[in-house]
């Protein structure tokens, strides 16, 4: 137990009277009042005040603790939401990539179909003209008709047809080559950045 000198006790009592300042903390519980009624009252009052302030602090600490728990739960919840959003964004990016790729395939398919149709029609026209001119030339030969113009036309026609054939083949090859290049550049356009998972343009 702690024993205070009379002088110290009086100083403590006067401090309490004049300024309302008391000893605080667990140490008050160890003070021996030495049958000094006034000092005994002082110690009781100090203990009471200390208990009041501790109760208040305990209440506040509990409140903060509970708020802290809530905040931690909210943080967890927010982190989960954030993760879900990131996943959703990634899924959306993937879907966008798939859609772009599908669109490209569709465009290419349409282009190839168009090229196929052009080639078919061109071939039919070339063959048709060739057949008609040959038939007319053959008819003129059979019927002994004057065929100077047809003869020249027929030979010119075959020359032109041959040239045109090469021209068509060249065009088709050119279109194919150009398509190949375009698809390469589209692939670059939809490439995704590894760091931010955004499409690189």
């Amino acid at each position, binding site marked *: 137990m702690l024993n205070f000198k009379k002088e110290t006790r009086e100083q403590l009592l006067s401090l309490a009277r004049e300024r309302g300042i008391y000893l605080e903390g*667990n140490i008050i*519980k*160890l003070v021996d009042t030495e049958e000094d009624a006034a000092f005994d009252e002082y110690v009781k009052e100090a203990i009471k005040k*200390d*208990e009041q302030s*501790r*109760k208040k*602090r*305990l209440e506040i*600490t*509990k409140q*903060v*603790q*509970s708020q*802290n728990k809530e905040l931690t739960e909210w943080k967890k919840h927010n982190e989960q939401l954030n993760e879900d959003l990131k996943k959703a964004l990634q899924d959306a990016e993937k879907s966008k990539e798939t859609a772009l790729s599908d669109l490209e395939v569709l465009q290419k398919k349409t282009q190839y179909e168009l090229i196929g149709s052009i080639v078919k029609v061109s071939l039919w026209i070339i063959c048709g003209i060739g057949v008609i001119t040959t038939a007319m030339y053959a008819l003129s030969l059979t019927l002994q008709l004057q065929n100077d113009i047809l003869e020249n036309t027929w030979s010119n026609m075959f020359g032109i047809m041959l040239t045109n054939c090469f021209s068509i083949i060249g065009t088709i090859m050119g279109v194919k080559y150009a398509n190949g290049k375009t698809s390469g550049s589209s692939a670059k356009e939809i490439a995704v950045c590894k760091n931010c998972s955004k499409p690189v343009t």
Partner: protein
Amino acid sequence: MEEMINSILLVDDENLFHLVFEDACSLLNITLSLKTLNSSEDAEEYFKGLVQRNAPKPDCIFVDLNIIGSSFDGIELIRRINFEHGDGVVIGIISSSDDEEEQAKAVKAGAQFWIIKSDEIEPRLEEFKKDFNGYLARKAPFRIYK
């Protein structure tokens, strides 16, 4: 003056709980001497130091089950204190968990009590204070304070 526990050591990572525990102990006259530590490693080092210096050990130790930032949990700390550094110390868990499996492990490690943390910790500490002498004499059985 009311009989109190001479000294208590609390090992818990939550600083706010240190304040709650300190105030509760003071208001309930459980102890006047409370030391708080934040990790299992610190607690083990502290105990090693006491043994080396031949200094008095705390009468009672309250250990949190999951001490965040520690390399081993409260049950392992209890085992180490009981079997490696100290004897005769009343030691137990103070945790918000009520897991029976963990409680069985704690008993094996040498825990004498299990106090469940909640907003109203004071009634449980009061009950514990009543049983303390039984724990000290190694007569009281393992008890869970709910």
